[in-house]
């Protein structure tokens, strides 16, 4: 399948920047779109929408629980609300509001959070969401999407606007390389397979797709046939894609900028253990909080690197 679109002029932007642009486009097309934020509109990039459509933007101040409830109320009047703040505060602080009001009642509210994962960097553990996928994934009715780059983010925003129901979208703070092919077309619940490996298959999401593709390249040079899947929809999981990968290689590696508990790795294991048990190695944050530091150093510290994926696959293949 398609190569990444970097060479064809794709821009390296943060997924939150793509979100800001996508919201603007959507706001022009649909006047039922309403955006809410909690004193972080500069950081979440909802600020551009606020400027363009001041009558359709609500800054709720530093009150995430109120943010979610208000978004719920707006959806009950037929509006299409997008509620944004940092991932920790959106999914953590307002979790029960999301559970009770948004998920249980299947409201058409889009929860788009930025600053997920450890690449929040210097602000440290209090601001680094490493459990948000887990928190959202356990909720019935909730769809969970983790775009990997700017191209995908824009498509995700367009797609979820057309879908009726609660969705959580996990975005990041830092610039990320383009990983999706130019002709890529996102649809909810459908993974993108770059290559199916005979020796191992890496199922990745978010910024780890780029890292996984690098690992695939290194392994290829060493004679190991590894594949990569971008599992951007974590719920509903693309079971068929996981099954194909497991059948093709018998070794699955999951890679995410999230705890190894409850996230993509958890979702893949839950599915495979019941349907096609094969060994699974999980790359992610190993049940610890993050810490302050530059993004790239933190990625190394927590083993979110191509080298660590390569090492993990080689060790698993030796056994």
């Amino acid at each position, binding site marked *: 399948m398609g190569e990444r679109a970097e060479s064809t002029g794709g821009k390296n932007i943060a997924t939150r920047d793509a979100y800001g642009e996508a919201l603007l486009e959507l706001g022009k097309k649909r006047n039922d779109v309403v955006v809410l934020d909690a004193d972080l509109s500069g950081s979440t990039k909802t600020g551009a929408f606020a400027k363009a459509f001041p009558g359709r933007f609500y800054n709720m101040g*530093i009150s995430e629980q109120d943010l979610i409830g208000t978004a719920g109320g707006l959806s009950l009047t037929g509006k299409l609300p997008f509620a944004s703040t940092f991932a920790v505060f959106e999914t953590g602080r307002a979790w029960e509001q999301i559970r009770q009001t948004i998920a249980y009642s299947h409201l058409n509210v889009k929860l788009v959070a930025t600053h997920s994962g450890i690449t929040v960097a210097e602000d440290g553990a209090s601001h680094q969401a490493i459990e948000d996928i887990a928190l959202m994934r356990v909720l019935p009715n909730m769809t969970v999407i983790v775009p990997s780059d700017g191209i995908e983010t824009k498509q995700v925003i367009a797609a979820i606007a057309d879908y009726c129901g609660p969705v959580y979208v996990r975005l990041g703070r830092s610039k990320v390389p383009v990983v999706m092919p130019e002709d890529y077309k996102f649809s909810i619940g459908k993974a993108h397979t770059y290559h199916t490996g005979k020796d191992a298959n890496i199922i990745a999401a978010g910024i780890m797709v780029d890292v996984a593709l690098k690992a695939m390249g290194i392994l290829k040079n060493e004679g190991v046939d590894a594949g990569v899947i971008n599992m951007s929809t974590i719920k509903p999981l693309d079971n068929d894609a996981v099954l194909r990968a497991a059948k093709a290689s018998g070794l699955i590696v999951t890679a995410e900028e999230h705890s190894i508990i409850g996230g993509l790795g958890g979702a893949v294991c839950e599915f495979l253990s019941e349907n096609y048990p094969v060994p699974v190695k999980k790359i992610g944050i190993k049940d610890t909080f993050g810490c302050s530091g530059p993004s790239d150093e933190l990625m190394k510290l927590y083993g979110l690197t191509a080298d660590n994926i390569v090492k993990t696959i080689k060790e698993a293949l030796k056994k």
Partner: protein
Amino acid sequence: MTQVRDIGRLKKQARTVRAEILKMLTEAGSGHTGGSLSAADIVTALYFCKMRHNPKDPAWKERDRFVLSKGHAAPLLYTALALSGYFDKSLLKTLRKIGSPLQGHPCSKLLPGVEISTGSLGQGLSIANGMAMGLKMDGLNSRVYCLLGDGETQEGQVWEAAMSASHYRLDNICAIIDNNGLQIDGHCCDVMALEPIVGKWAAFGWHVIDIDGHDMVAVINALDEAETVKKKPTAIVARTVKGKGVSFFEGKVKYHGITPTSDELEKALGELEDIDNG
């Protein structure tokens, strides 16, 4: 800890605190400048005059407690702790670096002297209430101070805690609101209006003292007054200027989360010194 009541020395100490904040933030290259500077006089008054605490024994049972509910002012807390002698001043240079106990937001597990990890706004007053209850249960007359941002009081939990403190007559608690009028997205009055601040705390059953948070005499007097109030918690609404002490940072929304360049640092330190000399 020998505490000073000499206003002149406290004012000078507050300038030293500001200088250290600016230096560590410049070195770190990221962090929260405005909100650290706005509360510098208050925290100086607490750590170097009012609070009973022992840097050699951070877990001393009878100590007064300080909860930095607005955890992003970590550089201010770290400076107060370092200058008090909890750890060596050289550690300030490691702010926000990998392996440092000086995390972007305070972590009590890594740094003695930090009572509780904060950074997610709105949670500190509840914790302070719990401490105040526990101290009362143990028959101790230690006091609990909790510093909140004004924007922070938009969090519902703050008002849940405000209700509890007055319900349980926690007169050993003193909340201080750093009323600098700004938050991240702009002026509080534009983002989510807070006024009447004094009236809100009073309506929740608190004794309220409205002061200029940069007037050291007023700050000390208010803290003294709080100690005499019985059967009610006290809230000090401290009118402050975000970025206080550095003319080109003062009152600017932008300097919430922007650190000084080395040129700005030099100028800022110059301004602080001029006051000392003048």
